[in-house]
């Protein structure tokens, strides 16, 4: 039981940045703009957040810096792919390359610690929060356990993310912006003739994608590790993209995909160096590969035909 709870607890921790990034990707891809730059935006946000938090001693200013850095890259992507009808894959790739290049360079110039940022002190980091009555309820079987061991004791960013999920889902399916977002990604010409500005919707979608990526990056550096480490996103952006496809570009299934990947990741950490019955100790390399194998298997087998937004990747050029 203890084991299971701690496994699920770390699943939530690992899933949070994935969920944020996947929702970010959902906004831009639902609007018809391919977003392989999630990785780069997260990385830049992680760096900017750690650097700002270190200088200002405020995790909140760190978050703001992270969001601003990520949004500015998102706007570059929008400028290239919406305003100039450029190739969205190349633009996304460029963002990733820039991100992995510029972060250690600036890190080295500013902090002289091999491209990383200095370890943040306690005041400059986000902390785990105990929810009210967590202690009191910890002895109540099941419900109390779930509340105090699983739900309580996470960062404020985790709780924000939990709030953001239904909000995003509501925006996509129940709001005017959501209707326009989906229309623009499916048939921009229809949206255009109906009087919707395709460029405007895509810019707004990419902006919110930037905000969410900024939060994801901040979570990594200002909460999880307490400093920026070179290439610390380590493919999480692409994993989030995979979860998005797994969820067929719908918010809740995408979140489910993130939880699945995160669970595999948490399981991998837990299995390392453990003697299992029958097979004995599994080599750590074999264990580390689990989340990735799972990704491939899920995408290849279980998803079925993932129907992407029809206009994805296609720059909108007025037909007349």
């Amino acid at each position, binding site marked *: 039981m203890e084991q299971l709870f701690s496994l699920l607890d770390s699943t939530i921790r690992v899933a949070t940045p994935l969920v944020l990034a996947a929702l970010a990707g959902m906004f831009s891809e639902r609007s018809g703009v391919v977003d392989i730059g999630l990785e780069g935006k997260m990385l830049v946000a992680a760096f900017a957040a750690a650097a700002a938090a270190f200088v200002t001693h405020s995790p909140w200013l760190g978050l703001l810096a992270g969001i601003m850095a990520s949004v500015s890259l998102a706007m570059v992507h929008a400028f290239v792919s919406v305003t100039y009808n450029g190739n969205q894959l190349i633009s996304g790739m460029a963002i990733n390359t820039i991100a992995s290049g510029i972060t250690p360079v600036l890190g080295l110039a500013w902090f002289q610690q091999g491209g990383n940022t200095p370890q943040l002190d306690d005041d400059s980091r986000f902390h785990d929060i105990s929810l009210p009555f967590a202690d009191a309820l910890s002895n109540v079987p099941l419900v109390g356990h779930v509340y105090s061991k699983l739900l309580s004791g996470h960062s404020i960013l985790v709780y924000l993310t939990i709030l953001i999920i239904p909000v995003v889902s509501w925006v996509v399916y129940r709001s005017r912006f*959501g*209707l326009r977002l989906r*229309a623009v990604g499916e*048939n921009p010409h229809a949206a255009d003739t*109906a*009087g*919707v500005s395709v460029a405007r919707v895509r810019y707004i979608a990419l902006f919110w994608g930037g905000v969410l990526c900024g939060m994801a990056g901040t979570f990594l550096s200002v909460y999880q590790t307490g400093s920026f480490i070179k290439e610390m996103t380590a493919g999480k952006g692409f994993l989030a993209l995979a979860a998005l496809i797994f969820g067929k570009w719908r918010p809740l299934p995408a979140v489910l995909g993130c939880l699945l990947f995160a669970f595999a990741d948490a399981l991998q950490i837990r299995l390392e160096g453990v003697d299992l019955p029958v097979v004995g100790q599994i080599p750590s390399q074999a264990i580390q590969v689990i989340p990735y194998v799972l990704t491939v298997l899920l995408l290849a087998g279980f998803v079925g035909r993932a129907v992407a937004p029809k206009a994805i990747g296609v720059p909108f050029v007025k037909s007349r």
Partner: protein
Amino acid sequence: MTDFAIELNGICKRFGAVQANRDVSMNIAKGSIHGIIGENGAGKSTLMSILYGYYQADSGSIAVDGKTVRIRNSQEAIRLGIGMVHQHFMLVDNFTVLENIVLGAEGGLLLKQGLAKAREHLQALNRDYSLEVDPDAIVGELGVGLQQRVEILKALYRGADVLILDEPTAVLTPQEADHLFCILRALREQGKTVILITHKLREVMDITDAVSVMRAGTVVGNVRTADVDKEKLADLMVGRKVTLKVDKAERAPGAAVLDVRQLCLTDARGVKLLDDLNFQVRAGEIVGIAGVSGNGQSELLEVLAGMLEPTSGEIRYQGTDLLQEKSTQPRAALYRRKGIAHVPEDRSREGLVKSFPMFENAILGYHDDKSVSKGGLYSRQALLARTRDFIRQFDIRPDNAQLRVGLLSGGNQQKVVLAREIHANPDLLLIGQPTRGVDIGAIEFIHKRLVELRDAGKAILLVSVELEEILALSDRILVMAGGQISGEVAAREADTVSLGLLMGGHKQ
């Protein structure tokens, strides 16, 4: 107050070297159905795009309800009460009818109230104009006729008083077209103004109150429909007399050249694209295949041309079953060598390489023709000479064999394909949509050549979505619906009503 809903005065629009509209003026009366008729490239669509705000006119003025206005984009046009039903529907396939209708006019940040209000409004419109559209249906699952009505609803929901329809019947069966015309008449009764862009004379005569005829960017006539007849309009449209009927003598056909038996084609999803087809095409006859596009005609042509492998059946050509022939070369090449020529439906994708010059296109599919090639090299001189022959015989313009084919007009491109295929002296000619995107002058020419070929004893299988063309050319007419032949009619006895019923899938 004025009696005109729309007044266009001296509209000019130039794109580079092309003067698309030259000093165009017309007045469109309130509560009328006004036709705009003209050949391809006559400037109809440009004019309507200016009215709907896609383009700005270089000069000239537009008045709506007597007030001079500037229309800078489609939102402004909508605000002035102008609605457009595009030729290619502007709908989001995976949205419901209701969602498509409110898109861009949601009336608030939240969808809920907007959708509820739209539903009420929609029901009223549905009732008033007998549109019969289910607001909760997914648009992609509706037929084209219904999708078109969704487009009309979209415009009406936005408060359109003037409705522009761009070639609305191009994709409809005759019955659906009749229903559309009923709707348009109902709109007129309610005081709406309808502008109908078309190149079909019959439609103009049937339904419009007044008509503007356009030719080469200018208006050559603004007339009341009651004062003209078909022939007069056609004359105005092309600027010279055209015969709508093709002159052809009765002729007794010879032996069967093509004999198709129990031909079936099933696609990967198990859908029967061709369902047990049995028919013959005899020497010296034109067999027309009518049908709304997408009912198996395209697949039939491709199977007969060797581009698609049928699932089962026999294709007997001059007595032997082509499907039993063993050959190392691709089927299409084999069939071609045996004397089956093919003018594909989509000439720009399957009939021509647009970036190649005319003379290279003139031997596509006939590369091993000994008279122009030797040992894998072709003789440029012989090829150019042949192409010049084509140009002369088929009156291809401009007469430059080295010009890239993509620069030719649709009609001239089609002539290049036709010249090439006829030059091979085939016994069987398969021809799909011979006059799609071709102007009237060239249509007449192409039709004449086809009849000449028939009179020379060739067998011709003609697939076309233009009923008038099928009626004018064919000796026998087969109608396809849902992959089956729903009926056969002798051309003499055929009329659009009976054909329309068959096209709609009513079996004989």
